[in-house]
């Protein structure tokens, strides 16, 4: 197990540098000049432009810029946005919002998606199973921006149960609707994945053995069936938590939530290089950690991987 963890940690290093460098490269080779854009319509003073370029390290070759940037990142300095605000403080505002939203969505995936899949998988061919299949199919087919606006119209405008946009993201009740919308697609996948996995494992030989041992049905399901069936679901949920932490551009946009997705979208539009690279660098780390956790969890759940 120790070797496995060490190997996985070492693998993260090249992935981290590769991914961040690619992002760096892409952002800085985008057409358009952010410094010129700062001046807008006004004529720029060449001396001022040169000093700004120097300040933001833009007068250096790309690889030097990258090394300089990485050096700063390791000192937890993500640079300064072109508006003069430190990228760290921008992220410090945005990430808590996104994390709260992600946790609400994750809660829905686990406590709604899993039970639906469980019922559906255990009672194949029943009305409940058909209903779950149908509903999840609809959810998967409808794009999230449509679903988001429909939910907003029904629950906020027509029923008036919630405010149409999020005023205060620390109020969890305001995050329930956007959280549900954000969770919808993954929730449908979780339900279907659970259903399929349970269906497969129900037919497994070891389930027949468990019945032949005279175990009560509850023990068979909780101990033998679920333990095996949930391995792929847990893997999916772990990866999905990483994705949720990355913010949701569409959902955050619809409900006007100042999370990572929203900030990132605005930063890309205004060519805020330092902000984009800063956020994406953190997201790369979040993804890497999430996939590491998933792999370790996988090893905990499945001894065949642990001892491979």
């Amino acid at each position: 197990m120790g070797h496995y963890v060490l190997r996985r940690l070492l693998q993260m290093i090249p992935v981290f540098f590769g991914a961040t460098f690619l992002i760096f490269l892409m952002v800085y080779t985008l057409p358009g000049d952010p410094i010129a854009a700062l001046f807008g319509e006004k004529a720029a003073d060449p001396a001022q432009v040169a000093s700004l370029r120097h300040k933001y390290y833009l007068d250096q070759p790309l690889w030097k810029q990258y090394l300089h940037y990485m050096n700063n990142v390791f000192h937890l300095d993500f640079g300064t946005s072109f508006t003069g605000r430190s990228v760290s403080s921008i992220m410090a505002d945005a990430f808590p919002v996104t994390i709260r939203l992600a946790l609400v969505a994750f809660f829905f995936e686990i406590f709604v998606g899993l039970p639906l899949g469980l019922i559906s998988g255990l009672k194949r061919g029943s009305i409940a199973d058909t209903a779950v299949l149908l509903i999840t199919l609809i959810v998967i087919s409808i794009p999230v921006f449509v679903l988001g606006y429909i939910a907003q119209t029904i629950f906020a405008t027509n029923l008036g149960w919630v405010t149409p946009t999020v005023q205060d993201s620390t109020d969890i009740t305001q995050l329930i609707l956007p959280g549900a919308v954000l969770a919808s697609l993954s929730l449908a996948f979780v339900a279907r994945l659970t259903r399929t996995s349970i269906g497969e494992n129900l037919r497994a030989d070891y389930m027949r053995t468990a019945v032949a041992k005279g175990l009560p049905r509850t023990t068979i399901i909780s101990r033998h069936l679920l333990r095996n069936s949930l391995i792929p679901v847990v893997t999916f949920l772990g990866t999905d938590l990483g994705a949720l932490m990355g913010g949701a551009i569409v959902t955050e946009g619809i409900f006007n939530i100042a999370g990572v997705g929203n900030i990132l979208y605005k930063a890309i539009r205004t060519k805020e290089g330092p902000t984009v690279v800063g956020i994406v660098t953190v997201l790369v780390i979040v993804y890497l950690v999430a996939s590491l956790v998933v792999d370790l969890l996988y090893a905990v759940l499945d001894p065949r991987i642990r001892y491979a």
Partner: protein
Amino acid sequence: MTTALETTPKAKERLVPGTPLLEVRDLHVEFKTRDGIAKAVNGVNYSVAAGETLAVLGESGSGKSVTAQTIMGILDMPPGRVTAGEILYRGQDMLKMSGEERRKIRGRKIAMIFQDALSSLNPVLSVGYQLGEMFRVHEGASKKEAKAKAIELMDRVRIPAAAQRVGDYPHQFSGGMRQRIMIAMALALQPDLIIADEPTTALDVTVQAQVMDLLAELQAEYHMGLILITHDLGVVADVADKIAVMYAGRIVETAPVHDLYASPAHPYTKGLLRSIPRLDQKGEELYAIKGLPPNLYKVPAGCAFNPRCDVATDLCRTEIPALHQVTDRDGAELAGRKSACHLWKETLHG
């Protein structure tokens, strides 16, 4: 060293003498599928007494495993369905029992050993857990007691270094060791009867013999009934007391094991025995019964074996043969010998 299994034999004396431990009477099982109704078991009768070994022999699709699964109550229903018959355990029809009553018999009174131990053991639970579960669920043992008993069981089936290996997972054991674990699991609560469904088929030949010997030894020691399901005539010769040969969901011949080998009374049995490779036949072509096993959706009229039989007559093609009591040339009944062939006399004596 005293193990959980070495306690005095349980009250097996309760059994009224002469009453078999388990008796299957006229069992019919069919499967309803999209292609129609497959008649997998068509009136099977057999019985096992304590300490006795019954070998059920047959090709794939002969209904031997389906019968066993029906006894065990682990047949998938649907698509499976018992349409007629009784399964008497100590004189009580298990098919009429409630689900909870049957569950209490499974594992505790009647246990089963499966063919492929790797897939039949749960891959994510340690063998110690899976063995200990028997004691925890059926006897309310604590975790610690269950583990201790699991180690005793592993010792009993001669798994080396049992105490160190109790926390290992099925995939960390060799095929033979895994099958020993399956045997240990079946033996855990000292059942009256063990049903072993092709217990050695997935193993190397050398390991097959070891596992078979172990099973036979433990069976004798605990005076259990054993139903040994196999398609391998070599496996049954040494361990079985009597044999039931199945074909197309029926028993076509039953006999004490040595009689069956010496003088089969059914053309199908004769064909099976001829198709065993023998050392003194080196260089000769191996005999094979012509044709294919019958389609269970459309079992041939009359004797199901007639299209493959060398001696079939018109009678065989129209009338299903009864299970005849077999007699010797002088007409004296041969104990335990029956044949479902219109021409059993010719087959046996001719």
